[in-house]
C-alpha cells in the first residue's frame, strides 16, 4: 500500500558489494516505505540474492561503497544478529538444517533475544507455547513440527513454511523473502503467500525477491524492480511483472544498453 506520508524503512544509495573480490552489486538504489510491498525480479546472476544477504549482514560479502539506512540508522554497521533484533528478517532461499536443536527451542531463543534487545522480559516457555500455537495458524503448520529438529528432514515446502513461521513470531519491520517461491508446488505457494499477506501491515514492509511472476499473483506488489548486472534497471507497478513474464528480460537489458 503506497501512502505519501509513510515513514521510510529502508533507503539504499549507490550500494557496491563484492565476494572474493568479484563485484556483484554495482550501485543499487532502493527506497522502501512502511506499508509497501516491493518485488525484485531479474535473471539468474543479476545479484538479487546477494542484495538480500548484504542487507542481512552475511560475512562473506564485502561492502565497498554506498550506504544503507534502516529506520534512520546505518544498517551496515550492525552485526547480523542486531539487524535481526532491530526488525530485519531474511527468509532464506535454502533454510539450513540444524539437527539436535528443536524447532520450538530455536524459535523461543530467537524470540527472546529480540525481546531482550528491546529491553523486555523474556517470555517463559508456557506463554511462548501459547504464542506459537496462534502463529502456527498463519502457515497452517502442525504442532508436531515444533518438536522436530530445525528443518531436519523437512520437505522443501515445509522448510519455507517454517521460515514464514519464524517471520510470524519475530514480527519484522522489514521482511526480505529470497526466492521463497522456488521449488514450491502450488498448494505450498498459496500457503506461504497467504502467510506473508497476513503478516503485511501498514507499519512494516516486504521485499520479495523472485525469479518468477507466479508468486506475484498471490502477493500483490506495489512496486516491481528489474535487476540486472548488480543494479536496478527499471521500476514499475505490478503490471511490469506481467510484461516481464510475457516478454522476458532481454528488452529491459537492451533498452539499458541503448540508454548507456
Amino acid at each position, binding site marked *: 500500500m503506497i501512502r505519501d506520508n509513510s515513514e521510510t524503512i529502508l533507503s539504499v544509495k549507490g550500494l557496491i558489494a563484492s565476494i572474493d573480490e568479484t563485484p556483484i552489486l554495482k550501485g543499487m538504489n532502493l527506497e522502501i516505505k512502511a506499508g509497501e510491498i516491493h518485488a525484485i525480479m531479474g535473471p539468474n546472476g543479476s545479484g538479487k540474492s546477494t542484495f538480500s544477504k548484504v542487507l542481512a*549482514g552475511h560475512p562473506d560479502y564485502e561492502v565497498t561503497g554506498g550506504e544503507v539506512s534502516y529506520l534512520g540508522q546505518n544498517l551496515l554497521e550492525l552485526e547480523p*544478529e542486531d539487524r535481526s533484533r532491530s526488525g530485519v*528478517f531474511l527468509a532464506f532461499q535454502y533454510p539450513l538444517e*540444524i539437527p*539436535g536443536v528443536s524447532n520450538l527451542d530455536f524459535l523461543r531463543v*530467537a524470540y527472546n*533475544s529480540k525481546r531482550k534487545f528491546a529491553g523486555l522480559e523474556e517470555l517463559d516457555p508456557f506463554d511462548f507455547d501459547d504464542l506459537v500455537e496462534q502463529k502456527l495458524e498463519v502457515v497452517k503448520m502442525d504442532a508436531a513440527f515444533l518438536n522436530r529438529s530445525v528443518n531436519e528432514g523437512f520437505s522443501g515446502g515445509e522448510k519455507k513454511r517454517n521460515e514464514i513461521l519464524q517471520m510470524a513470531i519475530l514480527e519484522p519491520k522489514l521482511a526480505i523473502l529470497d526466492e521463497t517461491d522456488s521449488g514450491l508446488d502450488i498448494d505450498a505457494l498459496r500457503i506461504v503467500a497467504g502467510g506473508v499477506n497476513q503478516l503485511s501491515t501498514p507499519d512494516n514492509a516486504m521485499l520479495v525477491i523472485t525469479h518468477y511472476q507466479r508468486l506475484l499473483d498471490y502477493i500483490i506488489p506495489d512496486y516491481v524492480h528489474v535487476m540486472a548486472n548488480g543494479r536496478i534497471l527499471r521500476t514499475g507497478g505490478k503490471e511490469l511483472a506481467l510484461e516481464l513474464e510475457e516478454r522476458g528480460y532481454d528488452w529491459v537489458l537492451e533498452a539499458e544498453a541503448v540508454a548507456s
Partner: protein
Amino acid sequence: MSIQVSPINPVSTVALERSTYLSHLLDLAKATSNEIAWLQEVRDHAVLRVQEQTFPTTRDEEWRFTDLSDLLKLDLVTAAPADATAAELPEATHRLTFVNGFFAPALSSIDNLPDGLAIGNLSSLATEAQSYLGKQSGAEEVFTALNTAGLTDAAIILVRKNAVIDTPIHLQFISSASQPALIQPRILVVAEANSSVTLIEEHGAIGETAYFTNSVSEIWLAENAQVNHTRVQRDSQTAFHIGKTAVSQARSSHYTANTIDLGAKLSRHNLEIYQTGEQTETVLNGLVVARDQQLSDTHSTIALTKPHGMTRQLHKCIIDHRAHAVFNGKVYVPKAAQLTDAGQLNRNLLLSPKARVDTKPQLEIVADNVKCTHGATVGQLETDEIFYLQSRGIDADSARKLLVNAFAYEVLAQVPIDSLRQSLIDHVARS
C-alpha cells in the same frame, strides 16, 4: 670442521626407559594384596604375559598416533584407599563405588536387590566370578594383562537367567590421590540367557593430582541377553586413562555402548566386540570432546563371526584448541559371517586450526554376501550455519555453542538416564 659423535644412542636410552618403566608398573601391580587362591594363578599368568611384551611406542601400528612418552615422566606409586563422596544418580537404585580401585562399601548401595541380580565386589562374589574373570578375548594385550597382574578386586554384576532389571546400575570409579598412583579398576558383567540390564560406568576424579587409570571391563552376554552400557570418562585433566571394554555376545544378544570421553590429558579406549553367535546386534555410540592439549584415542574392534550379525557404530569427535583425537575402527567379517550388516560412521568437528584428528576405518571383509558401509567426515562449523542463526537474532558465540551442542546431542540423546544425559549436555555446553 669436526663431526661430533654422540656417545649414547638416544633410541636405546628411550627403549631402556620404556622397558624399565613397564617393569616398574608391573612391580606396582604385583605389590597389591590378594587372598584368593585361584586368583593368584590368573595374576601369575598375566605377569608372564606382561613380561613377554614391551611398552608401546608410536612405531607400533596400534599406537601410531598416541605417544605415551609423557606417561613415562610420571613417578607412580601403588594406589591406596582414600575418602571420597559418591555422586548419586537419582534413577539408579544400586551403586558400586570404588575409590582408587578399592571398594567403598559406605559409598555403595547394594541392599534390597531384585530377584535375579547379584552385585558386589570380588570378596562377596568370588565363586561366581571364577569362570569368567580374565577369560575374555584380548586378555594378553599389555595393559589388560597389567591390570590382571594386579587384580585384587572388581565390580561384579551378575544377572541371572530371564531376569529383567528395570533400574540402572551405577558403577562409579573415583580417583582421589595425593601423589601420582597406578589405579586399576576392574569390572565383570555376566548377563545370563534372556536377561536385561542397564549399566552406567563412570570414571572421575577429586583433585588435580596426576594419576594413571588402567581399567578393564569384561562383559559377557549369553543367548538373547540385552545389555545397555553407558561409559563416561571424566578423569582429571592431568590424568592418563587407558581403558579396555571387551564384550562377547552369544546368539541373538543385543549390546549397546554409549561411550563418552571428556576428561584426561591422554586417554585411550579399546572397545572390543566379539559376536560369537548368530543374529547378534551391536550398537556403538561414541562421543569425544577434546580441548586444550588433550589427546583422546578410541580404538574399536568388532569381530563378526557368525551369520546375520548386525552392527551400527556412530563415533563423533569435537576437537578444539591444540587437542588431538584418534579413531581407529576395525570391523572383521570372516567367511563364516554371511548375511551380516555392518555400518560405521565417524564424524569429526574441528573448532580450531590447530586441532587435529586421525581417523582410520579398517574393514576386513572376506564373506561375499554382506552389507558393510563406512564413512568418515571431518568438518568445521560452516559460516552459513552461523549466519542463519545470527539472522534470527542469536549472537555468533551462542550460535557456535548451539551448533556444537547439536553435534554432540546425536550421541548424548542415546544416554538412557535423564539426569546423566542432562549433566553431560551441560558439560559439553560449558566447555
